[in-house]
């Protein structure tokens, strides 16, 4: 009986389809009519069915919210980076399709059936794991940010790119699921002189980074899950290393090998690249931790104030590789005075934290900034302070305060103050 009436209802729905299409056409002719329940075409038509989009995709009205890149930054799209559209990220989780890319030899497609993880070197019992093997070990899920140390590189010499995405989009944050590296290292058994770990990728770059054993045993994850699905190919499918709070290139993608040794390997990625030349000509290496940083994501050059003077909510993100964010302060006058913003829960370890603060905009030009303070008491510096130490043209480690200039028409520009 219940089944029969359900069938009836479905039949009714199908019969009514024609009438609804007519109603929608009527609504469409009233394009100039004010929005509301009488004129909305979506309320006068039948939507798409469950057979329409088996995976799913954003609204067609969100086409601007995509990863973008700066064509003049690198020699080849396969050795380049794209940027997260932070201006379109509402909460602390970066959608997998938004998550910035950084390739050294392009995005490769690894067949999980042929993937293996070799764990070798100064261990009692070397191990060769399939993906199914790896997934049999006890697992964890943790939410951590991942930032490229070159995030903000273009802004060292001057305010150059008029965009939140291009100035700050080499960061993203995800929930990672995998096996703690310490679990695997216990299974292979570290020899007493095993003090360093080498992580090696399986793509054409075979990128390698050394990790001190203390960090390897602390909170690193050999991850296969990202935000509710398998790790994306862009992020190293099927498995990448997560080294919470440390620079992104430590988190080796398409992970294929872990070797234990007595000393660092001083690989290409920790000598020839990912080191920073200081004004005295010496290069800083092993600058692993991402220092505290924050940025206002609304308003920003991509998201101006469109409604004229009045009330707005200022929103942004803060993060630190040294633990948790303790506070974020916002200035509306170029850093003369600051007010405490509210931190949105959850405030997690080595994770993006969202902050908000209400603002009554009087319609006059303003210089807005955010400044992060982490649980160690470290305060995010100004660009002038950072430049005084690092020089005028470094590449990496720019964690300085961002200034957005709000103009009287509500548009927003990236500026630097002196």
């Amino acid at each position, binding site marked *: 009986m219940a089944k029969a009436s359900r069938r009836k209802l479905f039949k009714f729905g199908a019969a009514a389809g024609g009438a609804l299409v007519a109603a929608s056409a009527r609504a469409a002719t009233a394009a100039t009519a004010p929005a509301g329940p009488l004129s909305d075409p979506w309320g006068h038509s039948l939507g798409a069915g469950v057979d329409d989009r088996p995976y799913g995709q954003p609204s067609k009205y969100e086409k*601007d919210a*995509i990863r*973008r*890149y700066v*064509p*003049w930054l690198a*020699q080849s799209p396969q*050795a380049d980076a794209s940027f997260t559209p932070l201006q379109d990220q509402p909460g602390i989780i970066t959608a997998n399709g938004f998550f910035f890319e950084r390739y*050294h030899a392009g995005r490769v497609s690894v067949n999980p059936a042929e993937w293996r993880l*070799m764990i070798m070197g100064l*261990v*009692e019992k*070397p*191990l*060769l794991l399939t993906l199914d*093997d790896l997934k*049999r070990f006890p697992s964890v899920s943790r939410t951590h940010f991942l930032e490229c140390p070159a995030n903000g590189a273009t802004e060292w010499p*001057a*305010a*150059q790119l*008029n*965009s939140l995405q*291009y100035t700050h989009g080499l960061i993203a944050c995800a929930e990672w699921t995998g096996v703690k590296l310490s679990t695997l290292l216990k*299974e*292979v*058994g570290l020899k007493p002189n095993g003090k360093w770990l080498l992580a*090696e990728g399986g793509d*054409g770059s*075979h*990128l390698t980074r050394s990790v001190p054993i203390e960090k390897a045993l602390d909170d690193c994850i050999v991850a296969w899950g990202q935000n509710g699905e398998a790790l994306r190919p862009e992020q190293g499918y099927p498995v990448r290393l997560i080294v919470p709070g440390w620079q992104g290139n430590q988190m080796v993608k398409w992970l294929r*090998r872990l*070797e234990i040794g007595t000393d660092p390997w*001083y*690989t*290409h990625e920790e*000598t*020839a690249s990912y080191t920073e*030349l200081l004004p*005295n000509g010496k*290069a*800083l*290496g*092993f600058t692993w931790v991402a*220092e505290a940083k924050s940025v206002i994501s609304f308003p920003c*050059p*991509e998201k101006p104030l469109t409604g004229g003077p009045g009330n707005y909510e200022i929103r942004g993100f803060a993060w630190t590789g040294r633990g948790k964010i303790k506070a974020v*302060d916002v200035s509306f006058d170029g*850093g*003369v005075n*600051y007010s405490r913003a509210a931190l949105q829960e959850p405030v997690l370890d080595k994770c993006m934290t969202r902050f908000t603060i209400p603002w009554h905009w009087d319609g006059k030009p303003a210089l807005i900034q955010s*400044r992060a*303070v982490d649980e160690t008491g*470290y*305060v995010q*510096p100004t660009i002038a302070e950072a430049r005084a130490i690092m020089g005028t043209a470094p590449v990496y480690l720019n964690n300085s305060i961002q200034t957005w*200039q709000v103009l009287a028409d509500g548009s927003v*520009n990236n*500026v*630097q*103050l002196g």
Partner: protein
Amino acid sequence: MSSSAKIWASIIVSGLMLGTTAHAAEPGSYGVGATPTSDQIAQWSIAIKPDGSNLPPGSGTVSQGADIYGNECAACHGTFGEGAAAYPKLAGGVGTLKTQKLKTVGSFWPYAPILYDYINRAMPFYAPRSLTSNQVYAISAYILNLNNIVPDDFVANAKTLAAVKMPNRDGFIFKDPRPLTHDVECMSHCADAKALVITSDASKAGITPKTTGPVDNMQGSSAK
């Protein structure tokens, strides 16, 4: 069983469980995965250390390297390591690290064996791991010779590469000195409002790719 006997029994059981846990920490006790053979380990083990350990047998000369480099590397890196388009320069730059910061193998890289390691694992860009050990040795010899670090008759092998002292060998600090700033959380009158000037404005730079519409590859743009 009396209640105290129950308590003792539970303590003994927990003791046994602790014993089990301790046993679980023994290597291999989880029992998942295969033990690789020594041949498998050798095949996977491509990482070379700065002291040259794990460099494979084989050798290559500067002149052999010039030929192979011409075919495999010159299109991107230039015949003499001068670089093509925006691809990395491999030679020159000695003495520029304080100012122009031209980072090449000769001016910047601290260890010759890592040159072998990197070519072997990542080059050529379009066909990584397609070179033989002898070819990698030869290319390494040629690049070092381009930088005047080794003579024309240099033969690269496990022993000679390890013995090369690179010019910037001592140019690195591997102890992170950060944090480099130690600000306090100032809340008011933190700067002189009258002295604030805008020193740069990205809206005037004209080098930002579009932030709406399809991805902007800046083709035909005058920006660099």
